[in-house]
């Protein structure tokens, strides 16, 4: 583990600032483990606590009663890679977190898809942070 920690720290240090940002301290939330915790921590910021989305100059889509959650692959792809204004989360969520989150979304907020999210579905997650150039 140790070399990995040092490597990660080096990568963080080497990244130049390319935006006005708080500083190097981080901005770390408590670690979210269950699907619900992960939803509250990362997703309801835009998709809202009731998963119904919101409207401003544009729209944050509803995840509640959303037939696109019918397949595990679609949710996994969008969360990993982002879409439009939504950033990619493949470097913010671990494979385990992605699996728990997608399972939670597919069985809550009026979605009722019981087939399990597999390890293969979330292969893309747990990546090292991407350069911001």
């Amino acid at each position, binding site marked *: 583990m140790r070399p990995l920690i040092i490597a990660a720290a080096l990568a963080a240090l080497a990244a130049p*600032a390319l935006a006005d940002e708080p*500083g190097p301290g981080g901005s770390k939330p408590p670690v979210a483990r269950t699907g619900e915790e992960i939803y509250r921590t990362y997703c309801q910021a835009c998709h809202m606590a009731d998963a119904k989305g919101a409207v401003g100059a544009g729209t944050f889509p509803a995840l509640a009663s959303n037939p696109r959650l019918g397949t595990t692959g679609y949710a996994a792809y969008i969360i990993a890679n982002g879409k439009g204004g939504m950033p990619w989360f493949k470097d913010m969520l671990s494979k385990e977190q992605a699996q728990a989150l997608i399972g939670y979304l597919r069985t809550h907020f009026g979605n009722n898809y019981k087939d399990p999210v597999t390890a293969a579905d979330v292969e893309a997650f747990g990546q090292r942070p991407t350069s911001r150039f």
Partner: protein
Amino acid sequence: MDTERRTPTRRQLLNAIGLMGGTAAVYQMMTTFGHAAETRFAGPPKLDGARKGSTVIVLGAGLAGMLAAYELEKAGYKVQILEFQNRPGGRNWSLYGGDKFTEMGGATQNVGFAKGNYLNPGPWRIPHHHRTLLHYCKAFGVALEPFIQFNHNAYVHNADAFGGQPQRFRSLAADFEGNIAELLGKAIDQKALDTRLTAEDTDRLKEALRSWGMLDKDMRYVKGLGSSSHRGFELAPGGGVNGAPKPSDLLPFDEVLKSGIAANMAFFMNDEFQTTMFQPVGGMGKIGEGFARQVGHLITYNAKVTKLFQDKSGVSVTYTDTAKGGTTTAKADFCVCTIPLTVLSQIETNLSEKKQAAIAAVPYSNGVKIGLEMRRRFWEEDQDIYGGHSFTSQEIGLISYPNNNFFQDGPAVLLGSFANGAGAYRLTGMTPEQRIEVALEQGSVFHPQQYRKEFMNGASVAWNRVPWVMGCCARWNEDTRREHYQTLVAVEDRIVLAGEHASYVGCWMEGSLLSSLDAITRLHQRALQA
């Protein structure tokens, strides 16, 4: 005297080069002289000779849009600006007492700050080399004052070091540098650097290490008046009988390393974060107001753009009036579109597939700022902190102290959080009341005696929930830059995009202005060819 007359002065030379090769050549030459190395701004554009009656519609009254309108009107175009909000400035914005802000999801905050106090939800500091912005601030009468970027006496807190006790920046930095100096000195003595350095070099380096790291005569970093003069004293030097200072204890080096202080020190070495920095007197929003004094007469507010189309004859923009209702289609010969990509990607256009793909390829970062109004300036009165930031590894990111009205009695607003990344998502997902509670709880780590006691009221802005931008700033990466950037910034027939998202100075006002100047210069050339 003779020589002096024949050798041109630097200014004469620059003028001559300017006449021959234009501003780019001047810029390049200035760089050679060691000037201007940090900016791309070569002065306001000289756009003239617009065709009589040519019209431009500008979408968005943020800084990019207003600058485009200002320069294009000067060049002779007839300009109209459409703005979604009921105010100019875009992300250049300050919240004052009496302001009301409703975020996406519906939560409304009534800002309760005392007169003169404010929160800058977006931009809040200006690097000294952001010359475009500084130029137009001066030109439009926006007064600037120093922004205290670097304060040795503020704190650094890391939950994983010193049992969660914050330490003064200067103590951590001094102990880090002192220990590094001592270790390097040992490496020299053990001949570890001999392959890289000559004997003369190592002598010089040892002397440098001794003075830089405050080492003693034996090249050791120890408790004493030397180390204390960098890290702070146990008892500061005084006058009279008991005037002698007492040195302070050093912090354990393993904890200093755990605190991550090197990253904080490196942060201040980033060229965007080096002193001197500035802020407008009275709030960042004064810049937007200054621009609006020039082009306010051109702006239609509450205009929500729903369609953007172009054909051989011109551009047509359909918008609804969100205040009074009703739909209008405005026409112009050309269009400068500064609408954030989060929103533009959801607007119907007949731009090329490639352009639409570029617009949809750039996600936006998040960010949360929280202002806390305190009854008194306890950080100044009790802890000798005047401006600057105290950093924390908690999700609030930092707290930052006001840079103006030092020593004043009465309420002051400190920045209770500047969060981004993972922590900012969680804060954004909270209600405004929950955000204030987290800010108070986490910020108390720095000022446990006073923080909750002196708190009066607070306000927060979570950028993902700001209705007109739905995010903080465009977030490029190497792949999207390679695949989409040039497509995004290219003039497509009659339409050009501008804004921080169309720059390499992302998330800075300077980026939006440089993008705007570049975009209108190219659009003007295109218009002259028409």
